């Protein structure tokens, strides 16, 4: 081999290494692989209409996964993610249906969601209880409370403002709901917080090494509280997006939100051990979950199989995380 080709080979392998080393590339390849499989097995999959449906179906899990990412980055986990969001839809729906101003109703619902985040964050940062147990407890409490409030049944929510996020705009024949746009805006804003501000730096530091964070003077407790409150606030926004998708408040909705949001985050390359990963990966991860569910539905496969596949996916992703962590 002459020196020139050795050089270009060295440079190319360097570029390749950087490319593969970029954490979002793996998830992107998985997304493309699933897309390829589904488009080969079903020509309808790649239809513009179906792609815009996938995006719409991804909105709720995609938005919930933003909050879940923040929490997992601090080495926590949120098992109340779906319950808090459902709390938002039921409260907003009940208040609006009983004659409250819909904007105030939605505002109060988002506040109530944030309050659940205050409760979780205070218990975790103040009493140092494990996030797993705290959010599991909150899941139980909210689920039971909602069934009591709504007497077990779903009810329609027909208010125009509450359904506003379901409106669509047409971009080159591609139909996009306001909800999709709001989700993408949220991704952009939280990405900025995580990557460009001191707060974001501290989220990573606390997730990496909480004792080091404390020793350099980061207010670890306050930071954790802010993360849980911001996450729950985002779940509240997700409640609004959910009402835009389906004008119905159902206490039994979003049963798979825990599985789906955690899967999106972990497939997206964020480590369950905290301190590594980010939102771009999560967006791709949420799309993977959306593509998977959509593709399997198109293939006429029972939804239970979708949960099964998602379950396998999350375990594989965590196993990969564990393996690469062991290498460090």
């Amino acid at each position, binding site marked *: 081999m002459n020196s020139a080709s050795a050089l270009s080979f060295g440079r190319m392998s360097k570029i390749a290494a950087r490319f593969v080393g970029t954490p979002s590339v793996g998830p992107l390849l998985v997304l493309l692989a699933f897309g390829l499989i589904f488009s080969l097995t079903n020509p309808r999959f790649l239809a513009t209409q179906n792609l815009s449906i996938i995006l719409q179906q991804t909105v709720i899990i995609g938005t919930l996964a933003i909050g879940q990412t923040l929490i997992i980055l601090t080495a926590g986990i949120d098992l109340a993610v779906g319950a808090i969001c459902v709390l938002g839809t039921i409260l907003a729906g009940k208040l609006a249906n009983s004659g409250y101003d819909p904007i105030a109703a939605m505002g109060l619902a988002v506040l109530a969601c944030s309050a659940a985040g205050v409760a979780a964050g205070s218990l975790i940062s103040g009493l140092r209880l494990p996030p797993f147990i705290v959010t599991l407890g909150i899941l139980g409490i909210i689920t039971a409370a909602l069934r009591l409030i709504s007497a077990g049944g779903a009810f329609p929510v027909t208010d125009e403002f509450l359904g506003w996020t379901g409106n669509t705009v047409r971009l080159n024949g591609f139909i996009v709901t306001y909800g999709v746009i709001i989700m993408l805006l949220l991704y952009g804003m939280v990405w900025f917080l995580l990557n460009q501000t001191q707060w974001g730096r501290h989220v990573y*530091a606390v997730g990496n090494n909480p004792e080091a964070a404390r020793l350099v003077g980061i207010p670890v407790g306050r930071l954790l509280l802010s993360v849980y409150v911001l996450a729950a606030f985002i779940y509240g926004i997700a409640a609004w997006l959910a009402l835009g998708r389906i004008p119905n408040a159902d206490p039994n909705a979003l049963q798979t939100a825990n599985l789906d949001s955690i899967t999106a985050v972990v497939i997206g390359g964020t480590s369950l051990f905290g301190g590594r990963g980010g939102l771009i990966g999560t967006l791709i991860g949420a799309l993977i979950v959306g593509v998977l569910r959509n593709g399997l539905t198109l293939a006429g496969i029972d939804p239970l199989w979708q949960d099964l596949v998602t379950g396998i996916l999350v375990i594989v992703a965590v196993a990969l995380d564990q393996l690469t962590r062991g290498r460090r």
Partner: protein
Amino acid sequence: MTPVEPREPVATAPVGVVLEARNVIKRYGHITALDGVDFELRSGEILAVVGDNGAGKSSLIKALTGAIVPDNGDILLDGQPVHFKGPLDARKLGIETVYQDLAVAAALDIASNLFLGRERRRPGFLGNVLRMLDKKGMRAEAERSMAELKFRLPSIGSAVEALSGGQRQGVAVARAALFAKKLAIMDEPTAALGVRETGQVLDLIQAIRQRGLPVVLISHNMPNVFEIADRIHIMRLGKRAAVVSPKTHTMADVVAIMTGAAKFEEPAASASR
């Protein structure tokens, strides 16, 4: 073993004393890590703190920097009592510390670790309103201060977990040197270092002293201690067993006091000799 004669009486007057601790007690359950320890750091000096494993050296400096809150005792900075509620309080007063376990975030890069907890923001609207980090400025400053340490390092953007143990120690030391305004405390900063790197850290400690700041150096390496310390604070069983000068005492003397083989007479008794 022969008893060690105290040849240099320890001053008790607070003249030129920067940081002082009196009768500090810290218990962990039924373990008494600090059993009424006294401490005195004078302006412009390098004070070594030595002692066996578990003697309470790290506990002492953690009590001095607010990393632990002592059960009892007083801490005085420039003669004024201070009550640090956390490490941030001490950092705000210009006290910088290299902790024994380094306090670095492994997945973050060198520059982020150097500025951890005191990130710089961009000027103007971007920084004040959007709270944007001045990543470029911090990187440049990090380059500069790592160059000052003369450590061989991969790029300033590499994650700390990709560094060797010694290089990580270099990051922690550089951070303390960069931010110390009042004094610096280093808990075994050369424990993982080779000969060359140890020399570079010792140089840096002397450079900090040149800036007029006193330095506390915890070390098990007696030759290093005798090379650069002005005074040696010897810990034994959670107490200060003695403070000696390397000019008047030998390494054997220090080891003897450290292990309890020799008794060091009370400073008051020695002063009356």
